[in-house]
């Protein structure tokens, strides 16, 4: 099954490839972003101001409703039973004692569960959201250790949790393929990501490497990671007749509504998903079994169901980041110019998902090398499907690449920043496309100055402070600009002059609602409080994923399109008595609560006046964003220069980060306050990646053994030093608002900056994450 799917992906990739060539050579003006967004030139609006989050007061006062907080009449509470085996069959289920326990309403298993179809797996279709395509509680088959095998419904959560322990299941375990090394020995295949094989060769890299006067060739490994958003995955589900209403914690409401509708065989309009607030997403708040099980249980019991995963439950049924084993080989001339760049290795996925950790993606556009050989291979294991986790690919791929660049700098005896500058490409080194905007040199310059890079000793192990060795390291961070198809938005303006922007987008705590209100206010020529930005509801227009750091661009392009439609509509309504009479839409801009002639601002009429004369209570338009062809016409990426100072204890090996600076080049920053938090959050997650995050996956049983925040280590406050964040603020002329995504780049490059600083402090090169103290003793 997975082979067929991969073949389909390859075909899709080939079609995209052919079209891509045509788009690449087309004139700029045919592209979205061919003409710079007018908001880029507007320097005194709301965009660029550090507005505090408009949802802040709601959250501080506890009145922002999260998915587990919607009250419903007659609510039943669910608790899950997870399989303790990785593969096999259920031979017997005894639910008698559980059903007899106080408060229990029903115990759902494959025996009595409503019959539904498997989920459409993410990337298999425009609106497919499933983490995998496995049947949900439909059969006696077990496919991973932790798969839900029963749902207990009771009057209270405590009753459900107790009865859960009374469900007795007898399994027949079969031999499962869990061990990464064993699977690799059995054979791997070229991995596919977003329809394209993760393999690329330019020139003869092996020969160039062999011939290079200076070369390094190293292996790196990164472990499994699990999602740990503070808000547990939660869902409140109810059937109202044939309509399924779900309060979810989601980063893709429209995808989820469509996918669940497919599973239940109903129209997508019959599934309504709201998700007004999300306590962290990071790629993990997508469609997993809990939404489906709650919906099935609600149907079975005829009552609304609330299902909040336990922290353990998140580890058992929500995928995480897969392990990687990577090789980076760099060949250079004596001046450090790259002759060969080899980045290859293996990762793990399942047969039921389409997500291979794409750790070479950042390498494709990082450096000008004469030859390239990039390759990701994947093995398929009997485990919970892995998934997206903040900068999938780049987070772990830049650890290997940027550690290797540091090793090469060492081998050459030149400064690691200088080495990067010498390999700065003029155009995308593998696609040949021009960069839309690339100011990584400026980011390095500003960052090095602010961090005090010139104080760094080129020779390791030179700085000591008592028991501590002190070192500095740096690395490049990067993340692509994406904009996915499907963006659409509606703008409604009332005769009172208030605008509402509707789009099925998401606020997961990063400030989307605030930044987009700023953007919409500028675009419409209104004040912040004259604009309401509505989102987080699948009945609103648009198919928008809060992922791939692309939501800002996706919303921006959709709202821009809707604004175009609005201008057209308003001109129509305005009629011949308006000062705007006779103007064409592209001659008109929004300003000061209305429309004006672009180059003659005094020729102006307010929205209130236009609608008043037409005696219309409101005007409402909806439009779709253009296809994101810009990403095939330009090479579009955000960049960062990451600087780390670390202290390593000579007695205990304890590594502690003492200073960090991220210097970013991400286009125009829409809101410095929320952006700073995004950058810092990404860097903090990167510190965890570098020093402590690791899922303990017992390869004997395929079971996660540290499913808790006490044993799965993420940084605590004391692990996080002052993190300085600066940016170039140079607008990208080819993106909406001149902005590129900022959500994921913070985690990229960070682990390598830490590892390189540890090398500078101790002379010890650790190529295996996390860098725990035992590796430094």
């Amino acid at each position: 099954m997975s082979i067929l799917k991969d073949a389909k992906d390859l075909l899709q990739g080939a079609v995209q490839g052919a079209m891509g060539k045509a788009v690449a050579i087309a004139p700029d003006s045919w592209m979205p972003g061919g003409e710079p967004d007018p908001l880029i030139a507007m320097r005194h609006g709301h965009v660029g101001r550090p507005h505090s989050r408009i949802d802040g007061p709601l959250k501080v006062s506890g009145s922002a409703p999260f998915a587990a907080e919607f009250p419903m009449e007659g609510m039943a509470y669910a608790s899950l039973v997870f399989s303790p085996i990785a593969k096999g069959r259920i031979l017997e289920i005894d639910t008698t004692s559980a059903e007899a326990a106080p408060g229990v309403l029903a115990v759902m298993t494959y025996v009595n569960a409503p019959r539904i179809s498997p989920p459409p797996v993410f990337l298999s279709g425009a609106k497919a959201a499933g983490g995998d395509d496995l049947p949900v509680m439909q059969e006696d088959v077990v496919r991973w250790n932790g798969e839900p095998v029963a749902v207990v419904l009771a009057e209270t959560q405590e009753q459900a949790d107790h009865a859960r322990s009374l469900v007795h299941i007898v399994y027949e375990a079969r031999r499962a393929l869990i061990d990464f090394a064993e699977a690799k020995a059995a054979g791997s295949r070229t991995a596919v990501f977003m329809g394209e094989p993760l393999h690329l060769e330019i020139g003869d890299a092996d020969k160039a490497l062999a011939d290079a006067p200076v070369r390094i060739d190293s292996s790196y490994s990164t472990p499994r990671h699990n999602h740990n958003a503070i808000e547990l995955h939660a869902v409140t589900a109810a059937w109202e007749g044939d309509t399924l209403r779900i309060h979810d914690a989601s980063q893709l409401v429209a995808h989820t509504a469509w996918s669940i509708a497919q599973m239940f065989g109903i129209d997508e309009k019959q599934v309504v998903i709201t998700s007004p607030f999300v306590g962290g997403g990071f790629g993990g708040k997508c469609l997993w079994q809990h939404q489906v099980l709650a919906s099935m249980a609600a149907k079975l019991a005829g009552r609304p169901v609330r299902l909040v995963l336990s922290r353990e439950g998140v580890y058992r049924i929500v995928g995480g980041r897969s392990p990687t084993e990577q090789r980076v080989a760099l060949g250079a001339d004596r001046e450090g110019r790259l002759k060969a760049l080899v980045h290859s290795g293996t990762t793990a996925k399942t047969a039921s998902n389409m997500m291979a950790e794409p750790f070479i993606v950042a390498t494709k556009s990082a450096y000008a090398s004469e030859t390239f050989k990039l390759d990701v291979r994947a093995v398929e294991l009997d485990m919970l499907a892995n998934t997206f986790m903040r900068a999938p690919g780049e987070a772990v791929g830049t650890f290997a690449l940027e550690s290797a660049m540091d090793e090469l700098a060492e081998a050459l005896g030149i400064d690691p920043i200088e080495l990067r500058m010498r390999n700065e490409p003029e155009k995308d080194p593998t696609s040949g496309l021009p960069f839309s905007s690339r100011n990584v040199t400026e980011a390095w310059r500003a960052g090095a100055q602010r961090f005090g890079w010139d104080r760094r000793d080129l020779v390791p192990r030179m700085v000591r402070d008592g028991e501590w060795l002190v070192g500095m390291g740096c690395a490049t961070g990067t993340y692509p600009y994406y904009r996915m198809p499907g963006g659409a938005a509606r703008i409604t303006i009332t005769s009172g002059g208030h605008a509402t922007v509707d789009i099925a987008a998401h606020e997961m705590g990063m400030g989307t609602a605030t930044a987009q209100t700023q953007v919409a206010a500028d675009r419409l020529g209104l004040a912040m409080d004259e604009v309401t930005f509505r989102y987080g509801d699948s009945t609103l227009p648009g198919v928008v994923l809060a992922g791939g750091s692309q939501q800002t661009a996706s919303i921006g392009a959709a709202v821009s399109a809707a604004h175009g439609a609005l201008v057209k509509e308003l001109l129509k309504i305005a009629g011949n008595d308006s000062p705007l009479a006779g103007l064409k839409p592209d001659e008109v801009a929004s300003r000061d609560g209305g429309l004006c002639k672009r180059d003659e601002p005094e020729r102006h009429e307010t929205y209130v006046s236009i609608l008043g004369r037409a005696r219309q209570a409101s005007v409402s338009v909806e439009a779709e964003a253009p296809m994101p062809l810009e990403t095939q016409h330009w090479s579009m990426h955000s960049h960062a220069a990451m600087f780390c100072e670390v202290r390593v204890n000579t007695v205990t090996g304890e590594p502690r980060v003492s200073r960090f600076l991220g210097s970013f080049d991400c286009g125009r920053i829409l809101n410095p306050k929320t952006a700073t938090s995004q950058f810092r959050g990404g860097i903090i997650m990167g510190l965890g990646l570098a020093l402590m995050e690791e899922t303990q996956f017992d390869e004997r049983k395929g079971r996660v053994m540290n499913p808790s925040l006490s044993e799965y280590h993420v940084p605590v406050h004391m692990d996080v030093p002052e993190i300085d964040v600066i940016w170039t603020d140079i607008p990208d002329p080819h993106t909406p608002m001149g902005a590129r995504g900022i959500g994921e780049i913070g985690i990229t490059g960070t682990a390598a900056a830490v590892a390189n600083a540890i090398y500078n402090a101790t002379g010890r090169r650790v190529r295996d994450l996390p860098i725990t103290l035992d590796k430094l003793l």
Partner: protein
Amino acid sequence: MTPFRYSRATDVADAIRQSGDCNTRYLGGGTNLVDLMRETVERPEALVDVSGLSRDIEELPDGGLLIGAGVRNTALAEHRSVRTRYPALSRAILAGASAQIRNMATVGGNLLQRTRCAYFYDDDGSRCNKRLPGQGCDALEGFNRNHAILGASPSCVAVHPSDMAVALAALDGVVHLHGARGERSFPVADLHRLPGDRPDVDTLLEPGELITAIELPPLPFAARSTYRKVRDRSSYAFALVSVAALLDVEDGRIRDVRIALGGVAHKPWRAFKAEEVLRGGPPRAAAFTAAADAELADAKPLAGNGFKIELARRTIAAVLGELAGETA
């Protein structure tokens, strides 16, 4: 969680009376017991809440301290006499858990917390002799980076998680117990057992026996004591290795010394062998390392925790060096 009865004890005698049923557990702050109940690792039929009993810290006429078992960890760590006369204890407590947990946790409960071995916690999916004697141990060949290097058995390689208990063991703390058969007391260092073939039994407490107090003897040189905890992050992580120590140096000789180790054994590990090596000798780095080597001579690493031997060796030497006023 399995349903249970709850009652509050009015005094020690009442607590002991109420604990007649052997499936009753005493409840302190509940910061570990309630977690274990949620995981169904512990399934008591009844809880007797003793957190309201004995919450005083009393200065004894001989210069010692009597610490009620119900004293909250935070209160003990902040107590002036503890900070000035037994700083190792204050530091050990503050190195553990989080402020919120320390505000809840009691001294008696801290001593009786159970191992954080992942296989012990995994009631649904793993084998554990501590949870179910005779079932087998999945940690032996599994994740055992945090596990014991001293005093383990083929049945169990778990470690005791407490920081506070390590300091108490070093400070010659004495635990006072009340039970159906009366009162007794013995050193904190003897409270916990090695696993042997009964890892399900953590301590020498008899069923229904209640810890009522901890006594710290007057130990003037304890004012020069410290606690160092080595862990994978700066806070909220269990010790990979910890060392509590106090050192009495006079005329260039070590007159007396106490050392206890955490994170290395099924119990707070009083390092008697190291103490023996040091007593009467010079307070020098070489002597500290030799003492550490003597204590660790019997250490047996598992597949994942071999680094702990070197880590313990270095940490012991560094802590003693610090107390002796040397730089490590």
